[in-house]
């Protein structure tokens, strides 16, 4: 396939590209953080219900996390489409059946999450609903990983000619599986960390949770390294240069592990946020070495940016006000 036309950059941005890139980074980090909590929480919750009689298992507010995961996912997708239009659109078309299906699977998971935490529902029903929700969300996460993986590897797009109906899913190899596993392990670690901070991790609030966290971190490092090692050599070489490198990421993860082991969980959470941001930046660097995208900009038109800023001001004010009400009136 002749892919030269890809590198023209199809969306002409109305503002300098760094603004969009910055917003993409911030919103994506937020989304991944919230998504980690959701996926990890549902996995831990389902495992807890499955492995116990359910009485000692703390019930997470899954629908709330679900709502915010979906909501925070909208903005990075928007900015991603603005920056990588040709790539993300193309991979989404190739994977269309799964991509659209993910929405309906997510919808089913959303409704099931209400059932999974419903105090009125029998334990067996909650257990099944939680497991189904967990499986559905795992599947959705796999679809998303496959889509991004396909987006970053245009040479695989020729598979479209064999399967033009949108049912291409997994086009990678072990590196893709490592990547997905990395996502799942990260979700488990972050959910565990949050649960332990809030004291709602049940049996995992103790030493078991401590060592499980360390184990998850080590597994994260292993899968991360495994994924990176299977990338093309040019990509590895490129990602090894500059300030943000795999080594830095490993050092950061190591630091996180030590803080976590020391029991300073809030400090670990803050470190984890930084670590997550670092990881997102590193991924962006890897992405840049896989696909070089030229962004085009029009003569600046800040009209819509002003609207966005006004919305942020207004909406931010409303959010702060509502959070203050929560603080005044107790837990939400």
């Amino acid at each position, binding site marked *: 396939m002749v892919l030269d036309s890809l590198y023209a950059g*199809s969306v002409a941005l109305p503002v300098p590209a760094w603004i969009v890139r910055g917003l993409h980074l911030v919103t994506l980090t937020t989304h991944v953080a919230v998504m980690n909590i959701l996926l990890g929480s549902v996995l831990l919750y389902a495992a807890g219900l499955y492995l116990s009689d359910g009485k000692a298992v703390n019930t997470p507010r899954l629908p709330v996390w679900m709502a915010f995961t979906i909501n925070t996912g909208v903005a990075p997708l928007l900015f991603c*489409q603005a920056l990588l239009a040709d790539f993300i659109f193309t991979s*989404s078309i190739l994977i*269309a059946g799964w991509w659209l299906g993910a929405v309906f699977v997510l919808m089913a998971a959303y409704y099931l999450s209400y059932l999974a935490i419903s105090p009125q529902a029998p334990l067996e029903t909650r257990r099944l609903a939680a497991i189904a929700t967990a499986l559905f969300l795992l599947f959705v996460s796999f679809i998303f990983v496959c889509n991004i993986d396909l987006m970053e590897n245009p040479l695989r797009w020729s598979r479209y000619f064999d399967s033009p109906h*949108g049912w291409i899913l997994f086009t990678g190899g072990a590196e893709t599986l490592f990547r997905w596993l990395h996502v799942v392990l990260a979700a488990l670690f972050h959910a565990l960390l949050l649960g332990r901070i809030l004291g709602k991790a049940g049996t995992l609030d103790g030493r078991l949770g401590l060592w499980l966290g360390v184990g998850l971190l080590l597994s994260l490092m292993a899968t991360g390294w495994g994924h990176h090692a299977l990338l093309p050599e040019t990509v590895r070489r490129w990602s090894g240069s500059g300030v943000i490198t795999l080594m830095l990421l490993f050092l950061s993860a190591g630091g996180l592990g030590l803080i976590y082991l020391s029991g300073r969980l809030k400090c670990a959470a803050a470190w984890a946020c930084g670590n997550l941001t670092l990881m997102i930046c590193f991924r962006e660097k890897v992405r840049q070495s896989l696909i070089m995208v030229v962004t085009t900009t029009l003569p600046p038109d800040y009209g819509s940016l002003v609207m*966005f800023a006004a919305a942020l001001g207004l909406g931010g004010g409303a959010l702060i006000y509502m959070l203050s009400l929560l603080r005044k009136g107790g837990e939400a």
Partner: protein
Amino acid sequence: MMYPVLDFFKGGGGLLIAVIAVVHVYVAHFAVGGGLFLVLTEMRARKRQSEALLAYAKRSTRFFLLLTMVFGGLSGVAIWFTIGILSPGATGKLIGIFLFAWAAEWVFFSVEITALLIYWYRFDTLKPADHLRVGWIYFISAWLSLFIINGVISFMLTPGAWLETGRFQEAFFNPSFWPSTVFRTFMALWAAGLFGYVTAAFSKEKEVRDGMLGFYTLWVVTLGVAVLASGRLYLASVPAFHLAGRYEFASTIPQRVQGFTWVTLGIMGLAFCMLIVKHRPVRKPLALLVLAVGLIHMGLFEMVREHARKPWIVPGVLYANNMAPEDADGVNAEGLRSRSSWLAGDHLTGRNLFKAQCLSCHSVGGLINDIKPLTARYTPEGLAQALVGQGTLHRYMPPFFGDARERRLLSRWLTHGLHGAKRQGIPKGPLPREDTIDTRQTPVLLAWRQTLGNARLDSALFRSGDPVTHRIQAVLILKGDMPEVVMDGPEIAVSSQGQTWAMAFDDDLGTWIASADTKSLAGECLVTAMEGGDVLNRIALPPESDSSRGCFHCHGGQRDPTGIGEVTARNILAAHDKNSGTAFVDDADKGRLVMCSRCHRGNRPSPSAAIHGWHNIYMADKGETSCRFCHSSGPNHAPAFFSGRHRKKRNCTHCHSNLRNHAAGLLKPFTVPEVRGLKASLGIEEGSVTAREPYAQLPDCLSCHEEFGPASFKSTAAMTDSSEERFSVRKDEMEALACAACHGRAHELVPATRPGVNDQSLAYMGQPGVMGSITCTVCHEEEKEDEAHHAGMLKNRDGMNTK
């Protein structure tokens, strides 16, 4: 870049987005209006200190949460995913314009869901005043979300001044923005009432049911009036040409607008029923019925908006198939494959071209805008031509983007690929005579056909003008030193297919003539001169050549050797009805023959001008191929009637000019609005065109054969100034013989290739050729040295005049 296209044939035509969008939009409007309703209900409950009503408000909140946040939120994501898959180019374009507007909408959506979650989870624990404030925050943020999305959606129909300035504020506050905002706000509030019926009807408390149902009825009826009024306001802001579509789907816009009004009134009627009917088991299904009809109501509006926009995604900027008008020249020159990796090499197929250009609006055997019935009547050649003119007159379709090869591939797949190959047959010449006509050398009897207007439309259902007569002309010459043209005395008759017509001498024409309708004289004709019961001489004329017209290529039916078959003719009338608002198919059904010249006269373009002007748009090649297309059975066959000597080195355009000039001359005298588009599409400066009257002004032979001399190879004919100068009525310089008597008729100048045409010259000269070109002794006793009939007539006497 061109994106790959999802191979989703039955679901093509936007089925996916239509289903998801209509349902989502319904719920999304409810999410806005319902927010206000929840707050008002809670206020009412608290004011009345009604526990039952407050409990109802809480239950409604849960229903609202599950419906709008889960289903509404995710179906919104589904729309986002779907448009990215089905219209990636357009989505990218809209992102470029509205990037941060969408981001702002996301902010309000975030506030909206946060507020709703707090409103629900803290229904019982927040102070009432704080709780109500959260409700108001929900409603305001939901409405602001609508406000912003409405800016994008209304822009897609009326981009307004943005087309010139390219500025965001012009795009957002486009001409239909405010009317649309008002209309959608009322729609949102109205939707809340429709959903409210369900929660109220299913409520177990009588106090709630009776109290709320009355309130809902007042709500729905009042807002129904507001919806209708603001709907009119909105429609008034949409340019009329978007709403007055006449073609295909667009033709349903007026009905859908009307349907929207009636459904609104119907729902208002049902609202009264909800109030009147006290029986609970009836109320429940009635409430669900109201909800379902509400979905249809929303669907009708969305379909009006979508169809009005077609064929654009953004008028003037991007077509529904993601093609931009500004790319047309480049793509048409280099082919679509030059812009798309997905059409390169072996992937350049008709099927893939269909996906790239058509699937966004047409399905294949699916529910929406099925392409199969629309292409069933075409031949590949016909459809290839239809694609040339697509989007020029029928603005409901975008133009075809691509070069000739791609056009051929697509048209072949859309016809043979979808419907199987149809054999139309190849025109056959007449069978050679089995018997021989004993033509004597004297007296010299020459005969020829003079069909007046054999290019005119003539079918069983319509005709371009008065009945076309078929005329046989003959001349009888007594051989001698000074040959004599016989004007009276003998009886000359023509017989064909068992009928005989006496011929009479016409002083003006200087020939014997017999006239009859076209079909009677279309077969072989035998012209016989008799005197006193004795046969003086007789001569045979071959039957008329195959008269197939190429109309069937685009209008369906089969090739008909007599001209235009009945199925084809009916489809032509149907096309005329669609394009011009006539009812000719009804006339044909009632047995009334349609006469084109009844309307196409005076200031209106003549049938010939209209037809050539209209079809010029659809012809890629304006040269002989286009002539063959209609005046023969197809572009690959030279017209059977054109078998004369000019056939060898000349084609139609040498005498009639190319289609563009031909149409330009015919259209020039007319200035009525309907011809402006036709003239514009010619791309010819009108001052350089000479007007021409059809059938009266025809190619002037002497404009090429100056002084009866040979024409240069490059010469092209000018038209005669009057009908008296036409070849068919001209005579030699002695005013003794019609030109056609010696040369044959215009399209069959001897020597011709069609069997039978040369029989007369063979009978009198022993060789094919112009009568007298080999020897003067056909009529004269001896060879002549002076060129009495016209100059140059003896120029080939040393050689053979067979070239």
